[in-house]
């Protein structure tokens, strides 16, 4: 049986864990830099570190992937992405698939491989490793992660439930994550800081920034009350640079306002998570743009994309290129880039006001977890396009003319009149005609960067096929279509 404090773990998994004191000793004696130290250094330098996503089923393949990425791209932090069977605690199916065909797993089944192999991965690279997954109940995975020496762990009771599961109650997921966070609290008392990253990216499609930040603020408050001392708060790049910078810069401000002083907070940017351009050149430009947004917003870390994103899980080669492209944007090469600070300031004001209107009624309740559950049930908290039945998804997001994400319909979110009016003013939509084209309009917003790709390809076609017959815009479009 496991002697892990605070964490209730399935007996079958617990029986395979090393003694708790041994795990603590292993983590303390590790010569590697802890994730929290890497983040502190990045924040101090004002240059984000880059972290890839990566996870494959087989152990040798996983080790090769990690060492290849480290050798060729030197990311600041590495990742083990976990397969979906393990995320849902289907450890037996994960084991069967691993035995039959490791390549059929969409990530590394860490619980099945076990902590000894986890340590082997940990020791095979210099960079610290974060475990990324999507589990509404991650307790077994967290136990094996710790025993492996991984002290960076992504997820929370809201953000790893609503986008990933159809019908797991928030009460259950919040309780499971509270156990993880209490164990992190005990570890912090012993001097071992676990970086707990919150997944503000949510459903990744047109997430209004104040929804993302509000969810993270609530999770961060719950985690810090449980004793967590290091929180990375991740925000998904929406694509409008002023809005994205305002959101990233708001993270430390909101932390000061709503979290205890003894918690370290690191803003993180997830490079654009929506529909990615298939054209490798346009994809590379978007990856560079993401890195630049992260730096301008003061992120400590940026999670890179690859130019194979449109086609699925990238190979190592594409991931190396993606890391390097994102890292390039964080060097001093682009330090001359400035944005319109007045626009950022205006965005910041309204964004923080929206977050306050969302979180303050919930934070005022005596029992935070219960208040979160009630608010989602009533629609006072909500996320668009939820996979789970436990969010109402009455919120409809829409891009305005600049590309910034606004509330076309705020559902039952408790926004003030001025907030609602601001959204209206930014959108300036003709609701009568929009209602007939709603699905097309929102699909077009989702495909935001595909429009840029189409324009680019049309331009390139014009440049490559000069001549009297090919100079008009119609000709460019038609030769673009042939390509």
């Amino acid at each position: 049986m496991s002697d892990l404090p605070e964490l209730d773990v399935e007996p079958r998994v617990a029986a395979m864990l090393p003694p708790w004191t041994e795990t603590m000793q292993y983590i303390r004696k590790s010569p590697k830099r802890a994730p929290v130290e890497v983040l502190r250094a990045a924040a101090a330098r004002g240059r984000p570190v880059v972290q890839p996503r990566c996870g494959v089923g087989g152990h040798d393949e996983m080790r090769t992937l990690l060492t290849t990425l480290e050798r060729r791209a030197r990311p600041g932090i590495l990742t083990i992405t976990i397969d979906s069977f393990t995320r849902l605690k289907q450890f037996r199916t994960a084991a069967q698939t691993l035995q039959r065909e490791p390549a059929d797993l969409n990530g590394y089944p860490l619980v099945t491989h076990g902590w000894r192999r986890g340590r082997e991965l940990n020791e095979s690279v210099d960079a610290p490793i974060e475990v990324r997954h999507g589990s509404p109940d991650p307790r077994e995975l967290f136990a094996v992660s710790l025993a492996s020496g991984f002290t960076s762990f992504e997820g929370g009771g809201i953000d790893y439930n609503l986008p990933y599961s159809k019908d797991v109650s928030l009460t259950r997921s919040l309780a499971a994550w509270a156990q993880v966070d209490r164990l992190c609290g005990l570890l912090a008392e012993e001097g071992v800081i676990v970086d707990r990253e919150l997944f503000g990216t949510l459903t990744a499609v047109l997430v209004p920034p104040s929804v993302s930040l509000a969810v993270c603020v609530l999770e961060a408050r719950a985690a810090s009350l449980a004793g967590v001392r290091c929180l990375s708060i991740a925000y998904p790049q929406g694509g409008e640079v002023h809005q994205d910078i305002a959101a990233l810069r708001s993270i430390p401000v909101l932390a000061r306002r709503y979290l205890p002083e003894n918690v370290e907070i690191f803003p993180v940017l997830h490079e654009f998570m929506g529909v990615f351009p298939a054209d490798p050149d346009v994809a590379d430009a978007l990856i560079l743009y993401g890195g630049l947004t992260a730096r301008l917003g003061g992120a400590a870390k940026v999670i890179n994309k690859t130019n194979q994103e449109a086609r699925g899980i990238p190979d190592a080669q594409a991931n190396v290129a993606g890391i390097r492209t994102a890292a390039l944007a964080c060097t001093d090469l682009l330090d001359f880039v400035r944005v319109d600070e007045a626009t950022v300031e205006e965005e910041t004001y309204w964004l923080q006001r929206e977050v306050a209107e969302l979180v303050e009624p919930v934070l005022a309740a005596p029992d935070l977890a219960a208040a979160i559950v009630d608010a989602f049930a009533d629609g006072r908290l909500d996320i668009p396009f939820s996979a789970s039945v436990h969010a109402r998804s009455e919120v409809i997001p829409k891009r305005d003319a600049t590309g910034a994400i606004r509330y076309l319909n705020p559902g039952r979110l408790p926004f003030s009149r001025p907030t609602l009016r601001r959204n209206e003013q930014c959108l300036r939509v003709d609701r009568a005609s929009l209602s007939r084209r709603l699905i097309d309009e929102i699909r077009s917003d989702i495909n935001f960067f595909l429009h840029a790709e189409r324009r680019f390809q049309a331009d390139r076609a014009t440049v490559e096929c000069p001549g009297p017959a090919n100079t008009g815009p119609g000709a460019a479009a038609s030769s673009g279509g042939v390509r």
Partner: protein
Amino acid sequence: MSSRKTQRTVIIGVARSDAHAVANHLIAMRLREAGFCVVNLGVCTPLEDFADALVAHPDAEAVLIGSLNGHAYEDLRDLPALRAAGRLHCPLIVGGNLSVGSHKDGDERERLLSLGVDHILDEADQIPLLLDLLHAARATPLTGV
């Protein structure tokens, strides 16, 4: 004509193995805006759950199933058995991305229709029109033109 006062009901959801939520939400919004009562069963819904929902909402005009992951045929395989058991007897409309791979040869539509799917739509925007046509046909049964 049928009474305009009673609200029209439809049941919608996404096929069993499919977790694509975005189009599902947009279709629900679009139909609600058009005045429908929408029973949305959401993502990853087994056919059996659609049949149960029809029992709970016997006045539903149609069941709409979205499938975007290419597994429509697999996910709807139990339809003949359910229908034989006297369940899911209402117009069944399927739409989305109906087979794996980018090459569509029309075969997939035939296979779905052979399972008993009544209508296949390529565009979500066609849904209200199809529902209106079905509604009108039900109010004024065709007796031969």
